[in-house]
C-alpha cells in the first residue's frame, strides 16, 4: 500500500490542475470580475482538497465561508468600485517581472526543501477525528481560542460598519 493510505493519484492530479489553473486565473485576469469567478472555483477546489484529506468539517466550512460569504463580499466590492479597462501594462507594473522571479524562486526552494528533506520518510496515516471528537476538543482544549475568535469576528463586523458609513454620519 502506498504511504498515506488512500491517496488517489488521479483525483489528486485533477484537483491540483484545477486549483492551480484557477489560481493563475485570479492572478492573471485582466477583468476583476473574471478574477472573482476564478477565485470561487479555486476555493471550490480547495474544499475538494479538504474532502480528499478526510477533513469533511473543513470542506463544509470552506464552502460556507469562502465560496458563500467571502465571494459575495468581494463581488459586491467590485460592483461598488470602478471598472479599469486597458492593456496588461496597466495591470502589471514593471515590478511584476521581479515578483514573478521571486515567486518562482520561492516555489523552487520550498519544493526542493520538501523533496530533499525526506518529510515523507516516516509517513503514517492518521485518521482525522470525526465531527463529534472535533467538537469535544474544540470546546475543551481549544475553548479559549474559540471565544477569542468570536470577539475578533465581532470587532471585524463593527469595524466594517464604522468604516463603510458615510462621512456625515460619523461624529
Amino acid at each position, binding site marked *: 500500500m502506498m*504511504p498515506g493510505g488512500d491517496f488517489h493519484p488521479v483525483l489528486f492530479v485533477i484537483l491540483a490542475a484545477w486549483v*492551480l489553473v484557477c489560481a493563475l486565473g485570479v492572478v492573471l485576469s485582466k477583468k476583476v470580475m473574471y478574477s472573482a469567478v476564478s477565485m470561487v472555483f*479555486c476555493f471550490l477546489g480547495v474544499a475538494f482538497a479538504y474532502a480528499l484529506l478526510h*477533513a469533511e468539517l473543513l470542506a463544509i466550512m470552506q464552502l460556507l465561508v469562502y465560496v458563500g460569504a467571502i465571494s459575495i463580499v468581494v463581488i459586491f466590492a467590485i460592483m461598488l468600485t470602478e471598472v479599469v479597462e486597458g492593456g496588461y501594462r496597466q495591470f502589471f507594473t514593471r515590478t511584476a517581472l521581479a515578483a514573478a522571479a521571486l515567486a518562482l524562486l520561492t516555489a523552487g526552494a520550498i519544493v526542493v526543501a520538501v523533496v530533499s528533506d525526506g518529510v515523507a520518510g516516516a509517513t503514517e496515516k492518521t485518521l482525522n477525528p470525526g465531527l463529534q471528537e472535533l467538537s469535544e476538543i474544540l470546546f475543551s482544549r481549544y475553548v479559549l481560542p474559540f471565544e477569542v475568535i468570536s470577539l475578533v469576528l465581532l470587532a471585524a463586523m463593527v469595524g466594517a460598519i464604522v468604516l463603510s458609513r458615510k462621512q456625515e454620519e460619523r461624529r
Partner: protein
Amino acid sequence: MSALEWWLVLSALLFCIGAFGVLARRNIIVVIMSLEIMLSAVNIALVAIASFRTGVPGGGTLFALFIIALAAAEVTVGIAIVVGNYRHQRTVQADRFDELKG
C-alpha cells in the same frame, strides 16, 4: 514522492501564485483575493500534515478552522477599507493610494 510531499508541493505552488498576485497586481481587490489564495495554501499544508502525522488529535483541523475565521474577518475589514477609500479617492489602484490624510 509520497502523498504528503505531493500535497506540500501543491500547497507551495498555490502559495507562490498568491504571492505573485500580491506583489505584482495593482488592483487592491485582486491583491486581497491573492491574499486569500495564500491563506488557503497554508491551510492545505496544515491539513495535509495533520492527516499524515500523529499529534494532538484535531489540532491541524481546528487550526485551519481558526485561520478560515480570521481570513473572513480580514476580508471584511479589508473590503470595507477599500470601499471607504474609494469614496475619497475614486480609485482602487494601489499605486494611487498616496494620500494618507482623510
